[in-house]
């Protein structure tokens, strides 16, 4: 640190830059309490400030080291020890305790046991680091005049923290950009000054107000535009989940609270794009591929689906949920499901019509107590079909593995074409509901689609086919969110025609309801990816968040609820044959293969918050906006385009005309300050303006020669008049007496003629 003493004295600008770098250092300290368990961060800031001042004052090293030592001891005292520092027991005690600590820790260091270092010693090391950083900053500002690397690393640091930790750095990044602009431009100014001094045009450094005004204005303008301008969505998908999955081996739903896609609870507001997520949710051992049903919802609000599940307590042997009626033939099958670690669902996913749960293979945990084996009570919502388990006391559990018995149906298409269309009253009550605000044209469209069809089944098929035949596009990103007064279905059918499963399934359900066909909206997962074929002919499927899906079930009297798949690219209903019973099996096999295609290629998903046991996620239950934000189409509205172009043009004009504007500024400036004593500065400003406009005075050119030349170029006589007066003032030592007022118009004319 002895080197400090040989420093050349810095200017005010240097000090200013040094302060700015200190603010950058502060930005490094700010997020620390969020990402670590460090408290009292203000003490570190104060310590850094203290060291910065000492270093700036170039306190000799025999003084600065004890001072910094004392400062850090004081900091340690505040953080770790009690009592007043100045009292005998306080400060001295701290010193004594700390010297013991230091000795102990030094031995640890030399024996390489870095993990064993105690907290006070670590804190002390941090103090030491801060002081060193302050010195380095001082060195880079006053000596090398290079700070870009520090700035860059600050930006990287903050962005990394913002991306991978809960640190919210949107304000910090703005601050850093502003500070960084200032530092870089001021350093550049210093460099220019050095160069000018080297060629003898300047004798001392200075703090140029004009430079500062321009700088401040430019930075404010840039920041303002940056904040106000429309921003596109991230062009790359959020890398964090994938990276976490890769590096930490975490499954989905691990409770980081990040918005992403998956099976969610809340469907009140559908819409918006989302980002893919391939974290697995569960694996299932099944006879054949099938969709995994979670629940259905029946009330459409115009923006999404709501349900009000009313649970009935059931026994595990008979879960009491019926989907199929007498005319549907079923086959009993068995499935084993194993949830991935960290995925928390308290309700079951099942294919077909769930019958019973095998209590033997059921595992779960309550409140993080894995493998708890308590008797469970099972609850079923007979309307939505949601089957869940909880402890007898009503505590929520998290299922980890379970075996189910279910009915695999085969729907008789011939029968469905001919069955009566007299729906039971309770079905009509629940499944024909529509919001009053639903636009007329939705119903008109439904009529149009089915006008050639006779029976319910053909009508349903016509609606199901409609989407793939009418120019709808399947996409998961840039799907707009409907406005408050816009209907979700109406928007999809008539405005955007782009969307994913939610759009298709909801639209189909709503269209059918306008035709008085009872329909409901089902959510769950597609079959997933076959990852293993077992020897007994069964297969293991892995279902990921990306397999989250929604589809439609339509009611046929005496047949029951038959699933349909309106979403493009997903095979016309994957799991359930819609043919005569005798060819059921063939089709099943075929379909089983087909289902994998869309799963892999399209990754149809429901954009929602991950449902899990975490409080964090339970609180954030309004999550169907996952991956929201303005889409590309929304970005390029005429308004935003107009604003962008306008500001762009404005900036270009500003850049192009900067000297003009500057000249106007001086025109007004000196007009307002028209006293005689301002004459000299006004004249010198004129010289400066002329130089900027490409008419510089030569090195050995006298003012008079210069004035003659300027007058010749500008065909005026004003310059000579002004110069004569200036000579009188500058060389002759006169005080102008009213002459400046007389010449002021000439001055203005000159500047204006430069501007024209």
């Amino acid at each position, binding site marked *: 640190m002895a080197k400090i003493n040989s420093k050349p004295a810095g200017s005010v600008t240097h000090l200013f830059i040094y302060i700015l770098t200190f603010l950058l250092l502060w930005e490094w300290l700010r997020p620390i309490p969020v990402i670590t368990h460090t408290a009292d961060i203000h003490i570190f800031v104060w310590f850094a400030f203290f060291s910065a001042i000492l270093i700036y004052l170039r306190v000799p090293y025999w003084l600065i080291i004890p001072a910094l030592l004392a400062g850090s001891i004081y900091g340690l005292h505040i953080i770790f020890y009690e009592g007043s520092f100045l009292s005998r027991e306080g400060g001295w005690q701290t010193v004594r305790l700390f010297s013991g600590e230091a000795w102990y820790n030094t031995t640890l260091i030399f024996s390489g046991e870095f993990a064993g270092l105690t907290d006070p010693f670590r804190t002390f090391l941090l103090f030491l680091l801060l002081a060193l950083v302050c010195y380095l900053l001082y060195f880079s500002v006053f000596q090398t005049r290079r700070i870009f690397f520090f700035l860059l690393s600050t930006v990287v640091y903050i962005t990394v923290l913002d991306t991978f930790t809960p640190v919210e750095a949107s304000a910090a990044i703005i601050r850093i950009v502003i500070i960084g602009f200032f530092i870089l431009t001021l350093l550049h100014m210093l460099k220019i000054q050095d160069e000018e001094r080297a060629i*003898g*045009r*300047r*004798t*001392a450094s*200075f703090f*140029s107000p*004009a*430079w500062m005004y321009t700088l401040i204005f430019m930075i404010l303008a840039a920041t303002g535009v940056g904040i106000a301008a429309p921003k596109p969505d991230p062009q790359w998908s959020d890398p964090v989940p994938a990276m976490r999955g890769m590096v930490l081996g975490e499954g989905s739903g691990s409770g980081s609270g990040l918005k992403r896609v998956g099976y969610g609870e809340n469907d009140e507001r559908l819409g918006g794009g989302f980002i893919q997520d391939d974290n697995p949710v569960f694996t299932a051992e099944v006879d054949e591929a099938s969709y995994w049903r979670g629940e259905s919802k029946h009330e459409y609000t115009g923006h999404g689906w709501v349900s009000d599940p009313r649970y009935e307590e059931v026994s595990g042997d008979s879960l009491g949920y019926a989907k199929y009626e007498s005319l549907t033939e079923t086959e009993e099958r068995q499935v084993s499901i194993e949830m991935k670690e960290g995925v928390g669902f308290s309700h079951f996913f099942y294919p077909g019509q769930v019958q019973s749960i095998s209590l033997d293979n059921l595992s779960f945990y309550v409140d993080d107590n894995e493998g708890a084996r308590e008797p469970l009570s099972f609850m079923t919502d007979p309307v939505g079909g949601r089957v869940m388990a909880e402890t007898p006391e009503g505590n929520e559990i998290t299922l980890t593995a379970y075996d189910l018995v279910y009915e695999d149906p085969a729907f008789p298409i011939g029968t469905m074409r001919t069955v009566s269309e007299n729906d039971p009253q309770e079905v009509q009550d629940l499944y024909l509901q529509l919001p009053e605000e639903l636009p007329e044209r939705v119903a008109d469209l439904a009529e149009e689609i089915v006008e050639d069809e006779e029976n319910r089944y053909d009508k349903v098929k016509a609606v199901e086919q409609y989407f793939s035949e009418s120019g709808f596009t399947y996409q998961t990103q840039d799907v707009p969110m409907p406005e408050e007064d816009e209907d979700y279905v109406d928007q999809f059918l008539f405005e955007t025609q782009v969307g994913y499963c939610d759009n298709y399934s909801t639209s189909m359900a709503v269209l059918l309801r306008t035709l008085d066909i009872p329909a409901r909206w089902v959510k769950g997962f597609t079959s997933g990816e076959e990852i293993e074929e077992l020897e007994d002919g069964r297969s293991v499927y892995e279902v990921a968040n990306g397999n989250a899906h929604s589809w439609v079930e339509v009611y046929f009297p005496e047949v029951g609820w038959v699933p349909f798949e309106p979403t493009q690219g997903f095979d016309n209903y994957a799991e359930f044959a819609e043919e005569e019973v005798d060819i059921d099996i063939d089709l099943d096999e075929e379909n089983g293969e087909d289902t994998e295609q869309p799963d892999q290629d399209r990754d149809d998903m429901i954009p929602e918050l991950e449902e899990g046991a975490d409080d964090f996620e339970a609180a954030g239950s309004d999550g169907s906006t996952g991956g929201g934000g303005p889409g590309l189409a929304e970005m390029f509205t005429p308004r935003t385009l107009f604003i962008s172009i306008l500001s762009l043009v404005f900036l270009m004009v500003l850049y192009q005309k900067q000297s003009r504007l500057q000249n106007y500024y001086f025109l007004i400036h000196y007009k307002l300050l028209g006293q005689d004593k301002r004459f*000299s*500065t006004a*004249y*010198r*400003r004129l*010289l*400066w303006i002329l130089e900027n406009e490409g008419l510089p*005075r*030569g*090195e*050995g*050119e*006298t*003012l*008079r*020669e210069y004035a003659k030349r300027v007058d010749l170029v500008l065909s005026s006589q004003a310059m000579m008049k002004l110069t004569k007066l*200036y*000579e*009188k003032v*500058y*060389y*002759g*030592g006169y005080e102008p007496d009213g002459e400046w007022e007389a010449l002021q118009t000439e001055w203005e004319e000159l500047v204006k003629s430069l501007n024209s």
Partner: protein
Amino acid sequence: MRNRQEPSVVTHPLVHRLIENIEKVVVGKKREIELSLIALLSGGHVLLEDVPGVGKTMMVRALAKSVGADYKRIQFTPDLLPSDVTGVSVFSQKTMEFHFRPGPVMSNIVLADEINRTSPKTQAALLEALEEGSVTTDGETRELQDPFMVMATQNPIEYGGTYPLPEAQLDRFLFKFKIGYPSKSEELEVLNRVEKRHPIEEVTPVLTLEDIVDMKKDVRKVFVNEKVKEYIINIVNATRQHHAVYLGGSPRASIALMKAGQAYAFMQDREFVVPDDIKYLAPYALQHRILLNSDAKLSDTTNERVIHEVVQQVHIPAGKESVR
């Protein structure tokens, strides 16, 4: 630098009248007349280096007549003695004592023709008078008159039979310049004027010697800003540092430049010196005070060119340099 065709910048009424009067005799030599007057007003002397017959004598005589000054001409020859310049004490048999017969130098305006044709001893006698403003004969110091101005002429040094003036003595002249041949039209004008009778006969005084003395006092009052002084010093300094120069300008050169600048400013009716004055006068005041080194002599470099370069390069003060 002003060129010949430009109108005179002299606006001081008395000086202006004086110049007009001299121009009745000398055609087209306004600049040289001005320079001579600057020398007269600042108490300096002029060295004219020129071929014979271009009007040197006429100019000096016209100047002398215009101010009613006592005018003497010394033709320097190799056998001229110092006493022929300064004057001599003669023994008068009538009064039986020595009495002083002033030499030609004891007048107001002296034309020292072909000064480099005489011996160094005689040159020294004259040049001492230039600097001291007095002459010493027979142990007695005699003040010269005021105003006093010597206009010396010398043949171009390359000519044979000359005793070149040493630098130390050249330094005593305020200006050195050439008169040069007139242009054709000017020469025609000269012929026209002298056709009937010589116009010098008709020149009458327009000023008195007292006017000149008063003006000389006023010249000393012209203000020289520190910045301008700095500029003068920078110029002279630059001649010392110029790569082609063996011996640069002395401090006396700086003094000369400043005094000339004062006179020039006075003639323009200005109460302060501006860098333009200095820049304009620098070649006349400096080129005979520098010695080029041998390299420069072998190449084409001349004293004029060196001074020109220097003047173009030295920064001219124009106010706080950090107007930003």
